[in-house]
């Protein structure tokens, strides 16, 4: 179910970002499905392959896409039992994505181009720096909720009391930023830049063409939607008796137990609806951020990424204060 919804979202996601960016810059912009039309064309096109490359270059996009599929399978959908969830599944989530990244970096290095080497190096450095932020965030959530599987974390998170509101805010902020870094978007990388020297993601796929390029673009679209689902898990309510003001404001009911079974028919519809609202808001947010925000200097990027870890640390200390106050 989660996978299906993510795929549906991924169909619209890049289109929405593009459209918002066009509107923000005063243009009409292409249709919502234009990026997928491009991918469809790419899938049928022939490809140019560098003679420097080896089998690594050919399997890299495949592994990249496969790992993203697996990562999505691990994510729960709010209110539904997750198929593959287990204690500590977010560790697997992070490491499966790391496998895809590893192969992607090697695919870029395989071309022997200095530009792609540069991009590969930056990708490796930034994702290394972003890793701790993700783990501290989940450490925080584990401490707050007492669970280590994503399903249980998200479910009990919504019933953790009024305090979870601020933690939820920080978590959503961090996840948006991590998603931006992992997808090589604005404050760290600019997908629309024209100079190879300042690119990260785009420079790594310079030599990919045809089917391989299409796989990477599908992967990128899915990755965005995947982070959208992760964020939606914080925002979509799970209990039928909860009052929804909008996607982001929830009235907590701390006396309620954890709901494990799938809700009533209309509840599912409502949850899916809220999920789509969250995804659309997320895409629009990215579009707006990219339109009004400048890319950071490359030398400043590490500083920016490490800041995320420190924000996560602040959240952790906050939780520490909250939980210890509750004990006394």
């Amino acid at each position, binding site marked *: 179910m989660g996978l299906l919804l993510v795929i549906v979202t991924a169909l619209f996601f890049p289109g929405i970002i593009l459209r918002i960016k066009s509107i923000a810059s005063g243009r009409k912009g292409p249709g919502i499905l234009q990026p997928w039309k491009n991918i469809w064309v790419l899938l049928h096109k022939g490809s140019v392959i560098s003679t420097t490359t080896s089998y690594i270059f050919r399997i890299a996009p*495949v592994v990249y896409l496969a790992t993203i599929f697996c990562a999505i399978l691990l994510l729960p959908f709010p209110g539904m039992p997750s198929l593959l969830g287990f204690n500590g599944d977010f*560790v697997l989530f992070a490491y499966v994505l790391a496998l895809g990244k590893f192969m992607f970096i090697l695919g870029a290095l395989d071309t022997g181009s200095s530009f792609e080497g540069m991009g590969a190096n930056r990708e490796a450095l930034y994702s290394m720096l972003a890793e701790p932020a993700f783990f501290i965030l989940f450490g925080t959530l584990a401490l707050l909720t007492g669970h280590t599987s994503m399903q249980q974390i998200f479910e009990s998170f919504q019933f953790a009391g009024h305090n979870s509101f601020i933690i939820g805010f920080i978590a959503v902020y961090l996840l948006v930023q991590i998603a931006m870094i992992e997808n090589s978007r604005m404050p760290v990388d600019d997908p629309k830049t024209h100079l190879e020297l300042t690119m990260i993601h785009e420079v790594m796929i310079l030599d990919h063409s045809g089917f391989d390029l299409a796989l990477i673009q599908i992967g990128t679209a899915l990755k965005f939607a995947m982070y959208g689902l992760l964020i939606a898990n914080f925002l979509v309510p799970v209990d039928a008796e909860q009052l929804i003001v909008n996607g982001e404001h929830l009235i907590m009911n701390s006396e309620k137990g954890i709901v494990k079974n799938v809700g009533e028919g209309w509840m599912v519809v409502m949850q899916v609806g809220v999920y789509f609202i969250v995804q659309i808001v997320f895409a629009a947010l990215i579009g707006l951020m990219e339109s009004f925000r400048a890319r950071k200097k490359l030398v400043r990027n590490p500083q920016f990424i490490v800041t995320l870890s420190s924000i996560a640390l602040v959240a952790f200390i906050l939780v520490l204060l909250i939980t210890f106050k509750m004990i006394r």
Partner: protein
Amino acid sequence: MENIVILAPVILSFFILVMPSGMRYFYTLGVTFFIILLTSAPAAGVLFHPAGVPQTFIAGGFLGTITFTLDSLGAFFILIVNFTVLTGLLYSNGYLRSYRSTKTPAQFALHYFSYTWLHLSMLCVLMLRDGTAFLISWELMAVSSFMLILFEAEKRTTLKTSVNYLIQMHVGLVLLIIAFLLVEADTGQFGFDGLPIYFSHHPNTPIFFLFFAGFAIKAGFIPFHTWLPEAHPAAPSHVSGVMSGVMIKMGIFGIVRVLTFVQSDAYLIGIIIMIIATLTGLYGIMMAIVQTDLKKLLAYSTIENIGIIGMGIGLGTIGLGLNQPALTILGFGGGLFHVLNHSLFKSLLFYCAGSVYKATHTRNIEQLGGLIHKMPRTAGLFLFGSAAICALPPLNGFISEILIYYGLFAGLQATSVFQTMSMLMSILALALIGGLALFGFSKAFGLTFLGTSRSEIYIGENVVGPGMLFPKLLIASIILLVGLAPMLFLSPLMGMIGAQFHVNPEPVVVSLIYALSKISLVGIILIILIIALLSLRKLVIKPEKVVYGSTWGCGYTAGTARQQYTASSFSANFAELADPILHSETEYRQIHEEEIFPEKRSFTFRPTDIFRSGISKIIDFSMLSLKKIARLQTGNIQHYILYAFIFILIIFTLLYLKIL
């Protein structure tokens, strides 16, 4: 009867020296097989036996009797040692072939003899409880590995490195002797058997850390690691694989063995081990990233992995201190499971690096590149090993790391702020180590095997024969097996830990089975997806539509191999970030404004190990003061008679004054 069986390997090993050259390798292989059969069968029996009752063998002789005690902890290590020693020996035949023209048969004989003795001494270390016997085999292990490193003694650096290694091993030995003597002075028992008595009525921390320091020199915890990144590259690759894969783990074995006797202060000890291990892991991988020597990079990554193992052990000890069985099981389980995993992928990586060295005669990544076209199978295996060491699913490294993660997340739910914070810091460190390992190994693999060659290197045909590939494939298949069916290996390990530390592993194992089955499932789904997508790719891409051309150079068509990203440039931005810790040196003259036609210039990047320079300062100082004393050594016979006379005079005076 037992006597003969135990003595047989020792006697058989001496025949290696007198075997004819053609037979020597196969004879050594035979002896090794014999030793492996002899030890593996009882070890497997003890390890897989539900109660894990230790077995004892007594060997008597004219010098007295030696008791071999085989318990489950030793059995676990014995199986690992046997496997890695076997693959190393299988690999050595192909690897050493090219040395046949330069080395004499006597040198080969000594090499194989030392190899067998390294194996024997490691097994003895794992089975002996008596202090004297233990220390003798510990010493034999150091000496035989010293002889193995010395194989290429004609190189000056090798000679220097191996002497340095021998000295540092003896510092460790002295620390162990002191520790054993202190225990003996109190309990009257020289050996591990005295430890429980000593620990029951003395503070545990000081004596434990004396043992810890002695064993840590072997294991390579910082700041005792300085011999390791020098010795591993100097040794022939199968020896590096065995040393890094299993020999340094004897240090880990020693630490865990002593920990089984600790009775109080476990919390404090655990925290200190945790801090040392975390720093070891971070420092090791940070140093690995900036290296340009392939085997040195692997050696520093060994230090990193020792750090991860240490984190597991520290966590387990904290669990002992807090009386939380879950932490003990997960911590020791993760740490010791990583001992197994590291022995697998690190030996694989060292054997691959050895094949690279054999083919290209260089270990410098700056000169390598594009090897995947010439050695596709070695490249694939190196990639496999790299993925495993970066703890990427579905391979084995991930399983041991997730166990440690479990333990750390379980430890988060504590009542003390200090513990929660230290657990979070460890999670942070482990995540960072994971990211850094990915960075380091994408450099190691990407720049060595991908792109095009950075220098003129001739690679002959079939340098890496099937004999060298077979042991690597064997290791790779076990890595995959551990990754996909971890419970096969974990359940005896968990039982062993439960028996050694007197906790019940059942509840943890039950929850682990569920989680690990899900991990295996995801691994299988991943593999199926990859295969499906690859076949789809094959189906969709029509060969006539594929055009081959050169790599896109932004319109510049005269690109050369020298314009590729190099190992130094790949690590440059990281080295800059980590400069406060790493202190790498760069030598480069900037181009002046007035210089219209810039001269030819060079760029050198030299990573330095701060601990190494610290230790060499101490060594330099002692060398200088010893040289001053050496002036007494004039070589003049009259002077020596004078010294003797002065000595007698002093003794006489002291006796006269009744001081002596």
